[in-house]
């Protein structure tokens, strides 16, 4: 395991101590931080490792939110609902991947973006199942008290983050990760050396979706009410990309750092400039892309060492 990956696990480990220091606000922030990190890490598998610029994150987040929401409403336990959502998201993404990943560059980006729209509309129209535009109420899944609720969900999201990180590290060290790196650099050559790129890409897409779906499910259980435009929000597709770009594309540690940093900025902006917060987000994105296209991690390394930042 590389040093960077160890650092990542260490970082995640440190966060586990958060409930010891903070009250409900810190817990809420921590839960969102973990959620953002999950989204960014997952996106990195298909966007950073495989090099396919996916804008579909919101689609799977929403899918996961609704799958879990519906299952919880049917009386299934939270654990089982999340596991079922994980499996369903993986399968859905895998199948969609076979079809969508044939596209390259711009066309893939647009197709993945359209997926968000299509799923949102489908959910909107399936009123009997999902409550449609009126939203879905989700029963309380855990015990009593606000603090207990908050702590529970923090640890649940944290646990999911740990699982995501372990998955990502495992992929980066495996044959799958090696293959994805090949695909990213030269897909034609990858085919020529005997790599079944369709299979690898679909698995990557599936992996990039399953924890996102599970996170969506936890989110739904946490907030107790979701509606289509809330969870199928394009921002859930764009923010992970910005986080990845901020922290350093391709590097799991970079991506997670980017996620935490982004959340920090977002909180500061939201609390102080609520009316123009999306404008400020826009300015942040523009500045980032114009002046720091390789992310924070490139800044540090190029100053101290001269090493490659890819895992």
């Amino acid at each position, binding site marked *: 395991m590389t040093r960077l990956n160890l650092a990542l696990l260490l970082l995640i480990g440190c966060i586990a101590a958060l409930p010891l220091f903070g009250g409900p606000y810190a817990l809420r922030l921590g839960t969102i931080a973990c959620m953002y990190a999950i989204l960014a890490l997952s996106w990195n598998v298909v966007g950073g490792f495989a090099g396919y610029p996916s804008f579909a994150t919101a689609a799977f987040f929403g899918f996961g939110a609704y799958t879990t929401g519906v299952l919880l409403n049917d009386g299934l336990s939270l654990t089982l609902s999340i596991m079922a959502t994980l499996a369903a998201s993986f399968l859905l993404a895998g199948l969609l991947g076979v*079809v969508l990943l044939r596209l390259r560059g711009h066309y893939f980006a*647009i197709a993945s973006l359209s997926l968000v729209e299509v799923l949102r509309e489908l959910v*909107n129209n399936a009123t009997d199942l999902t409550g449609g535009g009126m939203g879905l109420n989700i029963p309380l899944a855990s015990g009593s008290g606000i603090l207990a609720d908050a702590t529970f969900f923090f640890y649940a999201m944290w646990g999911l983050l740990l699982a995501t990180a372990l998955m990502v590290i495992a992929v980066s060290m495996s044959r799958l990760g090696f293959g994805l790196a090949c695909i990213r650099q030269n897909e034609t050559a990858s085919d020529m050396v005997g790599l079944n790129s369709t299979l690898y890409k679909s698995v990557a897409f599936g992996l990039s979706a399953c924890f996102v779906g599970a996170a969506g499910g936890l989110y739904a259980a946490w907030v107790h009410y979701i509606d289509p435009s809330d969870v199928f929000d394009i921002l859930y597709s764009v923010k992970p990309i910005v986080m990845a770009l901020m922290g350093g594309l391709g590097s799991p540690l970079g991506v997670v750092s980017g996620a935490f940093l982004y959340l920090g900025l977002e909180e500061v902006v939201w609390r102080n400039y609520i*009316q123009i917060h999306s404008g400020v987000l826009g300015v942040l994105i523009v500045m980032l*892309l114009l002046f720091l296209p390789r992310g924070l991690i490139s800044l540090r390394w190029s100053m101290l060492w001269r090493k490659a930042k890819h895992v």
Partner: protein
Amino acid sequence: MLVAQVLINALVLGCLYACIAIGFSLVWGVLNVINLIHGSFIVLGAYLAWGIYQSLAIPPWYVLVVAAPLFFILGYLLQRLLLNRVISAPVLVTLTLTFGLDLILNNAMIYFFKADYRKLTLSPPIGSISLFDVVVPVDRLIATAAALALTGVLYLVLRRSRVGRAIVAVRLDRDAAVLMGVDVKSIYAIAFGLGAALAGCAGVLMALIFPISPLTSSTFLGKAFVVCVLGGLGSVSGALAGGLLLALVEGVGSVAIGPSHATTLSFVLLIVFLIVRPQGLLGRKGFE
């Protein structure tokens, strides 16, 4: 006759869709940039038309004369100063950049104009025309005629003027254009400016027909996307073909399966085309 009405509606709407999409298609085809600010440009154009009508009672079709140069300059500067820096970056970067810019513009519009829906109602109202059993509101008809005129102007510019030929050359083969002495940076800025101008003008026309609010920018953008993929990039005929096809599918779909599903249908169609025929009805293959 229902069929005739649906067809005429589709024809009118199709031209409007083409007008919405043509600027977007030009920028995508020539600069290889998916301009996510496009929808907000359209809304801004609509606000311009609305504002001028409210204060000076000048109807939108005259506003076009003012809107075109204003938006051209806006687009030109935006490209020259900002977008040009990332012009050869991967699609991820340019897409996210224009997304960020759109957030800024959209937020600014909400801040200054508020998100409430406005409607530009002409007074005195100009009613509709009724031919056989088909009814067409006159404001739509005027907007359609103006839209066709705009696309016609663009067509002539691309075909006849030096700048237009240079733009087409860059679209067909950038490197060859450079070798022929074309100042590509300048062409990019001009093309983007043209795209912005077309968007602004489309917005002015849309003010006649649709309600105006910053919240509608993503709807316009979505339509532009679908039209481009269906019809093919970078050409006027492609935008027309795509616009007509989309309007037809929506019209027929509305009647067959209900209007709420029509939007979903258009996006499903988008995905189908991306998979089966990514170059669109009239586009050239091999364009990423």
